[in-house]
């Protein structure tokens, strides 16, 4: 698989460059010596980023499919279920199988309440909707209890449970906006809800790492470098997810097509801003132009599919191949070869193939293929994010220096210490005495005059 190649080739390429970057500034015993996006703690954070972010994405889409009575609802729900399996396995890998199972039961139950809410909405059954909301309100407490047992830290557990409750409220909000026909809000909500989960992932991964420092080789889940990787995790995977849906909406001529395309464009804005913040505004703009153009090529592909115009479809794919080449060179130049053009080109080829496959199978009503493919396309972007963030951090290590001090502050000078005076205090006391003596002497002298 190309994704594997990307993951292997890129770390190799920047490990060759790192010795130059590794300055002595960070060298302190027992702490991370150089900023990095790849260590066990950041990898855990990325796993949670991926699964929690995807959970939101699939949940939002599945609820819409559900209330629409869409033919691909079952498969969309199956993808959400598969995500739950993966998430539970990740929890089990840290806390053991029993906790993993407990997590799975709880997580599946909360999805069940959402299903109840969607059903209640579809059948205009207010009582059923209220019952579902009541159940969901309980969820926070259950989750907090689970987390406090797991993390052994009540404050953290409560805070994270609050975060998950906000997730629940956001899904309901996004769904209600969709049902009300306010698609613009529905998609903004979707983006906010996905982004919110990255904060939960940040908190959860840092709590887990602090609980089992040795399991994670004493590395940190939250550093400026890890934040960069996570931010790119969010933006790149959201791109894939929104693109897949915008393509479906495009071919269906759905009412929410424009809103979904606008959400995709807003994602492009954020991604370009992130690139611009590292490489300057001009590069950000160039990135944006190229990125928007490739989305345009996908739109052309969708249109050609709608028009059953094979030539136009081929033209769109050709344009995507050209984009792949130019974009890979652009990134390779920007990262000074840390993301090699050919490696990125392969990764992009896969991204294109995944989205096209997800779309073609959707059009062919082969939904059992569509949704696993969407999951692959979503997951693929985390490899891209790892490569890109790794290159950026290796290129600008000073920008990603650690924030934490290496030692506690010296917040006392000993003036009130019990045993004896400090040297400084004695000197100061000596000086004070001398000054006092001098004043007395000078006063006496002036009196004598």
């Amino acid at each position, binding site marked *: 698989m190309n994704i594997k190649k990307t993951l292997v080739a890129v770390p190799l390429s920047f490990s060759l460059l790192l010795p130059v970057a590794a300055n002595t500034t960070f060298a302190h015993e027992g702490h991370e010596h150089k900023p990095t996006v790849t260590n066990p703690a950041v990898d855990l954070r990325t796993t949670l980023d991926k699964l929690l972010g995807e959970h939101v994405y699939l949940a939002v889409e599945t609820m819409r499919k559900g209330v629409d009575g869409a033919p691909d609802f079952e498969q969309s729900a199956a993808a959400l279920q598969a995500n739950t399996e993966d998430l539970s396995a990740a929890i089990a890998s840290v806390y053991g199988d029993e906790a993993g199972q407990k997590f799975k039961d709880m997580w599946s139950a909360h999805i069940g309440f959402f299903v109840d809410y969607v059903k209640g909405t579809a059948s205009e059954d207010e009582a059923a909707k209220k019952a579902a909301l009541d159940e969901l309100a309980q969820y926070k407490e259950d989750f907090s209890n689970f987390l406090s047992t797991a993390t052994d830290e009540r404050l953290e557990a409560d805070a994270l449970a609050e975060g998950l409750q906000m997730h629940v409220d956001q899904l309901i909000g996004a769904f209600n906006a969709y049902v009300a026909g306010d698609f613009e809000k529905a998609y903004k909500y979707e983006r906010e809800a996905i982004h919110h989960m990255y904060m939960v992932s940040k908190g959860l991964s840092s709590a887990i790492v602090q609980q089992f420092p040795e399991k994670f080789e004493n590395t940190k889940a939250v550093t400026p470098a890890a934040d960069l990787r996570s931010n790119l995790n969010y933006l790149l995977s959201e791109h894939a997810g929104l693109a897949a849906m915008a393509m479906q909406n495009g071919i269906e001529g759905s009412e929410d097509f424009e809103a979904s395309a606008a959400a995709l464009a807003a994602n492009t804005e954020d991604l370009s801003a992130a690139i611009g913040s590292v490489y300057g505004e001009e590069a950000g703009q160039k990135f944006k132009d190229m990125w928007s153009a490739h989305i345009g090529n996908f739109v052309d592909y969708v249109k050609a599919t709608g028009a059953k115009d094979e030539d136009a479809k081929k033209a769109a794919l050709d344009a995507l191949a050209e984009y792949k080449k130019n974009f890979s060179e652009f990134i390779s130049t920007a990262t000074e070869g840390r993301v090699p053009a050919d490696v990125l080109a392969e990764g992009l080829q896969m991204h294109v193939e995944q989205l096209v496959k997800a779309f073609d199978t959707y059009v062919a009503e082969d939904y059992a293929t569509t949704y696993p493919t969407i999951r692959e396309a979503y997951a693929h972007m985390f490899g891209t994010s790892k490569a890109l963030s790794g290159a950026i951090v290796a290129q600008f290590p000073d920008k990603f220096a650690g924030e934490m001090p290496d030692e506690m*502050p010296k917040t006392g000078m000993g003036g009130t210490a019990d045993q004896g005076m400090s040297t400084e205090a004695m000197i100061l006391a000596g000086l004070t005495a001398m000054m006092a003596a001098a004043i007395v002497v000078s006063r006496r002298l002036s009196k004598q005059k």
Partner: protein
Amino acid sequence: MKRFSFLTSFAILILLLTGCMSQSPGAEDNQMKPSSNAEEKTDEEAADNKTKSNESKESAESAEKLSTEDIEIIKDNRKGINPVTIDIPAIDVKADIEHVGKLPDGRMGVPDNTDNVAWYEPGTKPGDPGNAVIAGHVDDLTSPAVFYNLHKLEKGDKIHVKGKKGKTLTFEVYKKKIFPRLDAPLLDIFGFTYASTLNLITCTGEYNPETTERADRLVVYTKLVQ
């Protein structure tokens, strides 16, 4: 499942839900920070603000629609402040806050003036998710300093921190612990947490004239309550 027609049938429910979703934007301290460490953060903040202004513009455009546009999107609105003063009534402390970073030897800096306290600026802003840290001296060369009575704080005591733009955040003590000065859990004190916390540090324990240090550090853990 039958196909569902979107129109106004849920408008009433949506309006009812508005009550639960109301939120206040709150005053925000968004000051640019000069340190190079803060560059990334500032960029993020700028991008953040840009998104927000786009949102408000777009929502204004869709105002004609009879739908959900008056319902704000629920989101985490915690926003840190650039701390200027601290007020701890329980131990009668009112002090200015200096901003410090990491010293060349890797330690957290300390306030120049022993009547002031110091906020660790490369870390978390008070109010943001994460552990914000403020340190104060227990004494100067001859007499008690600003955090001399820090150890007297008890669970439930309040700490008020005022930001540059006048917004005051209140924190509440939930735990206090003493650590040997070279063996404190730095990640727990300075690292990330989902909660918005503020940890107060001062020196304690026996004074060693050789190292000119007290042996221990007292950490008073507080959490955001409003």
